[in-house]
């Protein structure tokens, strides 16, 4: 095979995979804009030709209009989508800010302080990375219930804040910042607390952005914990509500479900446009052995 053929085959391979990734997304968007009766029409339409924006309206507000006895949305959408949006934002943002704080403090200490048991504690934190949440989900549920946090958003938020991965990530960032800043600040009379809070904490911003994006995205998409911890539908997060919606009409008006899915992708698309390089950086930093 000459270079030209290899190059051509390479492009063919790359494009094929790209299509396999793109087609389901295109289909979802296009179908979310079709009349619900047409949503299983074959051959499928990849490019939207109908623009039934009403689907989006029904997915977002159907539940509320129905409850208020307004409109004929009847059996269309039985999940409180606005609640779900709010809950997902509230949970993801709270965990993200919590992690940024806790992980900045601990990451800084692991990177720059000498203190008793440091190595043991660091090893302990790293070992916890090996333990999948799924495996401890039963005791975690029991704990949350005993603390009276079952069926609350707080019960979803608090256990997710102490993140071993986040601490490791922040440590890697603080290791990269030169120690000369500390010396300069100490000569100017800064206390150790001020050295951290006024100098290093702000310098850790790039790491926080990476951690924040990864964390927000992970919890925006989270499914198992909300499924187990939350009962009341007003407390559901988006993936939970969408799966429930799908369960209600497996082959029915799927364009409404797809409208919900497309709506749920908006934060991902925003992160994708503005934060792609941070995620790549985060994954690569996380994979470097400490």
């Amino acid at each position, binding site marked *: 095979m000459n270079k030209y053929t290899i190059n051509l085959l390479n492009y063919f391979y790359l494009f094929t995979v790209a299509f396999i990734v793109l087609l389901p997304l295109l289909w979802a968007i296009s179908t979310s804009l079709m009349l619900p009766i047409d949503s299983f029409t074959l051959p499928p339409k990849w490019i939207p030709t109908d623009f039934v924006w009403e689907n989006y309206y029904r997915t977002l507000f159907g539940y509320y209009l129905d409850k208020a006895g307004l409109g004929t949305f009847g059996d269309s959408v039985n999940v409180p989508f606005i609640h779900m949006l709010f809950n997902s934002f509230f949970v993801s943002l709270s965990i993200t800010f919590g992690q940024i704080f806790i992980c900045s403090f601990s990451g800084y200490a692991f990177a720059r302080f000498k*203190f008793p048991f440091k190595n043991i504690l660091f090893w302990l934190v790293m070992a916890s990375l090996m333990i999948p949440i799924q495996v401890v*989900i039963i005791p975690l549920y*029991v704990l949350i219930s005993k603390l009276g946090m079952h069926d609350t958003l707080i019960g979803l938020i608090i256990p997710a804040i102490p993140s071993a991965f986040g601490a490791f990530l922040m440590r890697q960032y603080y290791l990269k910042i030169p120690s000369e800043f500390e010396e300069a600040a100490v000569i100017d009379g800064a206390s150790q607390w001020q050295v951290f809070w006024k100098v290093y904490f702000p310098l850790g911003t790039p790491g926080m952005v990476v951690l924040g994006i990864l964390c927000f995205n992970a919890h925006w998409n989270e499914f198992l914990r909300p*499924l187990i911890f939350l009962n009341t539908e007003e407390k559901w997060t988006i993936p939970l509500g969408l799966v429930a919606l799908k369960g209600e009409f497996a082959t029915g008006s799927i364009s409404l479900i797809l409208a919900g899915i497309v709506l749920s992708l908006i934060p991902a698309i925003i992160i994708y446009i503005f934060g792609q390089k941070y*995620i790549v950086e985060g994954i690569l930093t996380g994979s470097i052995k400490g």
Partner: protein
Amino acid sequence: MLNIQSQKRTKSRLGLIFVSPLVIGILIFVGGPVIFSFILSFFYWDILSPMKWAGLENYIWFLEDEVAHEVIYNSIIFALIAIVAQNILGFTLALGITKIASHNMKIFFRSIYFFPLLMSGATVSIVMSFLFNTDMGVINYYLSTFLDFNIGWMNSTNIVLYTTIIVYVWKHFGFTFILYVGAFATMSKDVLDASEIDGASGLKKIIYIYIPLASPTIFFSSVVGFISAIQVFDEPYVLTRGGPGDASRTAVIYIYELAFGELDLGYGSVIAVVIFILIMIVTAIQFIVQKKWVHYE
């Protein structure tokens, strides 16, 4: 001098204060639950009435329970195929984009491969469940050009597990892809140039240069890939709820059903302990074997 001493003391105190929220949190929400999982596996408990000592009964039932064997088997097959597929895709695609000249095309492909990573496994699976529908799905519609029967992607016991793997790999391969892009970007130019001069080409270069140089990444993504794939839940649960029969039921689906459906928390914990031990064993093996084939520069 005194100043330096007191600085050191402050640092050591602040250090402990700074890490304590994290460490205490991890002890409460990870460490404690791990220990409690082990304890719980020796009890009968339905969360409502008091715990009752079961001795080894739960474990004995595990040895007899055929569903448990099937879900563990499913999870292992799932994890093995998924990590092999992810690594092959990640490796070849990353290699592919390093070989193309146009910078814009590189970014184009990279951005596309990356996107599913940002989606939720649950919502991806909803979309895929429509596409893989036997009678009305888009995939069988196009396959009907070549086949005169419909493939039961989600209702054939022989196929359904592979369907869930396809969906899982579709969603996750971007992760390994990024790891390999990172690995190839940091590979020493000297080695690659030298191999060029030596006239090594094509397949030989991949086997003797790229794979050894990327071996730390292959190792890392296999360890991480195994830990996350063995505990898969979202994709098979949303696609089929583990069915038909138990054909796509994974260990974590079974844990979920036992503990939160049947309220058999003790036996559910046995499955969790088994998966936990499995992860430990496989990771330990990977770490031992890596010495033979992973080359750190």
